[in-house]
């Protein structure tokens, strides 16, 4: 793949919709199922991933000419691990309560496939600016997915949104249970697929 020709805005939209990390690429499913129980959780992990994605993408784009082909994957891993350590220590210091609620997942960002995958297919072939915007797009795409899942689960499960009571009752307590994460991700993916087929059909009819 040659260097990208997309504009910065297109890169962001690409991450948000066309290649949404959760619903389209189906990468980083563990956090999507595991801790999307509330909007706040989703948002916080989204911010952490955004941070790690942007900084790792920029780092790799900066030093890409000096990385030998055969050790590129270990280099990516170490770069990500460094930035994850940074965000891990920052969150533990400034947001201890929320950090505890997310448990081990902040440190597991290091194993999220989405970040390594973006470094491999994008950052190592593009300029720092393009990588920055791609990182922003992917990070926000991830955050968007997490917040959507979190909102549905919080409203349906607890009747609240961002901690505020919106319904006044708890419609389906089931959605707070972690097992519901699997169902919801399944439904959302199916919905994305359905919308895509509809869209393609219309595009065909139009042409």
């Amino acid at each position, binding site marked *: 793949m040659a260097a990208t020709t997309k504009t910065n805005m297109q890169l962001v939209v690409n991450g948000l919709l066309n290649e949404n990390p959760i619903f389209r690429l189906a990468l980083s499913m563990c956090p999507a199922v*595991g801790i999307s129980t509330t909007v706040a959780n989703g948002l916080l992990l989204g911010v952490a991933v955004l941070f790690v994605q942007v900084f790792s993408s920029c780092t790799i784009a900066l030093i890409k000419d000096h990385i030998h082909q055969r050790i590129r994957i270990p280099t990516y891993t170490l770069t990500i691990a460094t930035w994850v350590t940074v965000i891990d220590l920052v969150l533990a210091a400034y947001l201890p309560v929320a950090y505890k609620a997310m448990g081990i997942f902040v440190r597991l960002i290091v194993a999220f496939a989405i970040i390594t995958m973006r470094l491999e297919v994008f950052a190592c072939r593009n300029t720092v600016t393009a990588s920055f915007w791609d990182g922003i797009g992917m990070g926000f795409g991830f955050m968007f997915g997490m917040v959507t899942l979190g909102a549905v689960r919080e409203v349906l499960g607890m009747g609240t949104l961002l901690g505020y009571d919106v319904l006044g009752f708890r419609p389906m307590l089931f959605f707070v249970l972690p097992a519901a994460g699997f169902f919801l991700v399944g439904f959302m993916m199916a919905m994305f697929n359905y919308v895509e087929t509809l869209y393609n059909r219309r595009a065909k009819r139009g042409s």
Partner: protein
Amino acid sequence: MKNDVKAFWTLMLIIATLWIGGCEAPSFIKAAQFEETDRIVLTFAGPVDPAWAEDRDHFTVNEKPDPDILLDIASVRLSPDQSRLTLTLADPINQNQPHQVVVKEIVSEGRNMGTQAVTVSKPYFGYLISILIGALLIQNFVFSKYLGLCVFFGTSQKKSTAVGMGITFTFVIVFASLMSWFLYQFVLKPYRLDYLQIIVFIGLVSLTVQAVDTVLRKINPALFKAFGVYLVLVIANCIVIAVPLILADNEYNMIESLMLALGAGLGFLLALFLMSSVRERLDFANVPTSYRGLPIAFIVAGLFALSFMGFSGMSIF
């Protein structure tokens, strides 16, 4: 053949070294165990001062995972020979959790023996089995902790792939966890480098995978042919990095670590096997177009997760 034997003994030697290293330093408190439902009995190496033992402020008891929540001690009683001390708590103890007892400024025959902490847990073998079963079923890493899903959905399409991946994964995770446990306990912790744990563990896991790859290729090419392809995928599995982190957080000793790693590996194998059995049948089912592939797999996994919730709260020993 000769090489095999040599490799085996080298491995045994490494394990033996780790074993000895895993033993704890001698302590003035010789033993601590649960008695009945609300008592903890401490046995000291020598007689302790009765006046010291009367003061309840010298003892704190907490469940090991929650060091902030101290349990109420109702009474402290010293045996006539002054070496056995019974702590009676206000409420019954949850004996499935290991408890930590901190004994402050022990006074024995006029000498101050310092402050010592001791962990009370159920008979050790039962405790080990409960860690194993816990990681395997009750807190299954895939269905109850939601880790390793990318690889889980990627390799559960066919039974043969699933079993191959599961076995390879179990081997690698046991090796990687033991090595990272060793490194954490003897290098990172003594030198206060534990903020480096993420970098060190991920590096170690990649190295282990590479090492297993190289060793297997030389020693048993047939086995390598069967399982080599899955080795690369192991690195992309977040369980393999989660287990070392959990070991470091909970301060497990070596045998406990081995059990947790084994449980995690076998639990992943079980999850993959169950899932692949269902997905092989799904191939013949009439699934709505939008749901084909991953979405239906997620819903099946959700059903599995629901049924695994039936294990929650179970305790075996």
